[in-house]
């Protein structure tokens, strides 16, 4: 019951935050120097034509009207035409969105789960060789510079060893072949997915590992662990059923906080691997001064982060009844 109320209030927050971000973006682009129609104005055009151009883009209306039009267009899905591609932005976005979700969600789930499960194992074995070794590896990969690590991985695994494709998400030979089956196509995407997935996974799981480890070490000092041991429970049961669920709570909180950072990493990875996703599209759009596409890419990515935060908060509320109010 309280969970539903909590969900509702959090959802409200998400909507308000999204509106504020939209408004800030609107202000940003109005503050920007330069005339958005400058590229379209010809020397040949008369003053009347220029005025008509302004009217067409609604630039002669008041700022408030422009803002309301902006909101209306956004919610009707009318995102305008991309300057660079010449296609409606909506089509480009719909094409890129699933790719980003595939990469980002899979990577996040993998590194969160790996961090939590390995963190709990090595905390149990504190001080042992496994503990020191895994912590060291986790720390090392966590501090590696992501773009550089991505380049190194491509150099090593794709160029030198030839195990994985150099870039992209699909191999044209398989996808444009009318005889290829679904399994071949899916397998192809997975084959392309492995290296970028590994890069995001390796650079983020170290953080979770370390947080889970220290959280676990603190939890192990609690009285109820002593009780469980006194009851004669098996080590594994104490670790997995009593200590780990409680130790995992701060990790879930930090998952929420780290989503903003991992989406940065996702955008960089997409760019380096030429994975056709929203992050890469944003980088390209900004390079090409393609304002409509850049704005919508950014908003969509912001929406994804907000929703992901919402999911994490709900998960946390489900796991820890104390915070539902």
């Amino acid at each position: 019951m309280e969970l539903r109320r909590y969900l509702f209030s959090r959802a409200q927050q998400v909507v308000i935050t999204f509106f504020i971000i939209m408004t800030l973006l609107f202000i940003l682009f109005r503050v920007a120097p330069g005339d958005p129609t400058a590229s379209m104005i010809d020397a040949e055009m008369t003053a009347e034509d220029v005025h008509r151009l302004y009217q067409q883009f609604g630039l002669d209306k008041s700022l408030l009207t422009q803002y309301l039009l902006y909101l209306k267009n956004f919610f009707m899905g009318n995102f305008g035409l991309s300057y660079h591609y010449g296609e409606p932005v909506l089509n480009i976005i719909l094409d890129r969105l699933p790719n980003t979700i595939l990469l980002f969600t899979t990577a996040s789930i993998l590194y969160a789960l790996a961090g939590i499960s390995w963190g709990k194992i090595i905390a149990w074995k504190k001080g042992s060789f496994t503990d020191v070794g895994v912590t060291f590896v986790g720390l090392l990969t966590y501090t590696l510079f992501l773009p550089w690590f991505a380049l190194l991985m491509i150099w090593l695994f794709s160029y030198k060893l030839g195990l994985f494709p150099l870039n992209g998400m699909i191999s044209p030979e398989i996808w444009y072949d009318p005889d290829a089956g679904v399994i071949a196509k899916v397998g192809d995407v997975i084959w392309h997915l492995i290296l970028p997935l590994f890069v995001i996974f390796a650079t983020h799981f170290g953080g979770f590992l370390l947080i889970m480890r220290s959280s676990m070490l603190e939890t192990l000092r609690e009285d109820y662990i002593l009780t469980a041991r006194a009851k004669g429970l098996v080590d594994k049961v104490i670790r997995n059923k009593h200590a780990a669920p409680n130790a995992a709570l701060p990790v879930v909180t930090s998952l929420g906080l780290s989503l903003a950072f991992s989406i940065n990493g996702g955008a960089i990875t997409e760019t380096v691997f030429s994975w056709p996703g929203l992050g890469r599209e944003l980088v390209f759009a900004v390079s090409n001064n393609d304002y409509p596409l850049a704005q919508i890419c950014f908003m969509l990515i912001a929406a994804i982060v907000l929703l992901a935060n919402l999911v994490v908060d709900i998960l946390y509320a489900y796991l820890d009844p104390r915070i539902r109010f």
Partner: protein
Amino acid sequence: MADHKPIFDEHVKKLPTRKAFILAHLAHSRRQLREGWILFRRNPLGLIGVVLLGMFAMMALVSFIPPHIDPMYQPMTGVDPDIIGSHGPTLKHWLGTDFIGRDILSQLLAGARVAFAVGISAAVMSVALGTLIGLIAGYFGGSVDTILMRTADIVMVLPGLLVILIISAALGQLTIWNTVIIIACLRWAHVSRVIRSQTLSLRERSYVEAAKVAGAGPMRIMFRHIAPNVLPFSFLYMTFGVTSAILVEAALAFLGFGDPSTVSWGMMLQWVWKTGHMFRAPYWLIPPGVCISLITLSFYLIGRSMEEVVNPRLRGDA
């Protein structure tokens, strides 16, 4: 130290009150710093971090020397007349040259300088801002608190790199100092939350009550009584802030949005990548990445050790 104390006390008793007070304060701070250092020293990882950091500081200082040895060692504009294109390490160029014949080692050293400049300025600015906002929010509470913290929430949720990208789309090419300011404006939120929670608990202490009774206004209480106690946390977040600022600047430069007139490690990586030397110039690809990763590691280790000093609950864990 023990046998000096009576003589010191005798001396102090003869001083006018204000001077005595300041001396006692300084002695107390020095003692706190020394205790902090002893705790910090206990953890070998923190020392490794300090050593690494020292190495990079040396690099930054040394970076001023190469252009004076020979103009061809200038990181941005130096061109070796004998070399065309990218070559591997030689006696004249210890790490080789990049695609237009510039010395890679001098670029690496200049990058260290830029990293420190960017990292430290962005961190100091963001922590100053965050501490101020945290103090205000925590002390005044109520609607001021709510507004500030909601703003912090919104800022925290935004992916920083992408925000800088979109700002650079709107406002054009960013200079290195613009980037630093924007980074500072995005990083304050996390710091302010921590400082706020510290302020909330410190606000209830009896010395604050005493100050209020004595007629101290809110500004005086915040800065004279509460601030000194939250400063250790501020310093801690400064170490994290430096890393984060260096990483953001490097990532921006890597993607091509950095300041074209500064040579930073991220820029070097961008040049390797974009000029197609990624696969054939490991002497160019590897050093900048190693530097960025090691400086991140060093700040992380220092930050973790400092965390143990500042937060007693964490001691004896790692």
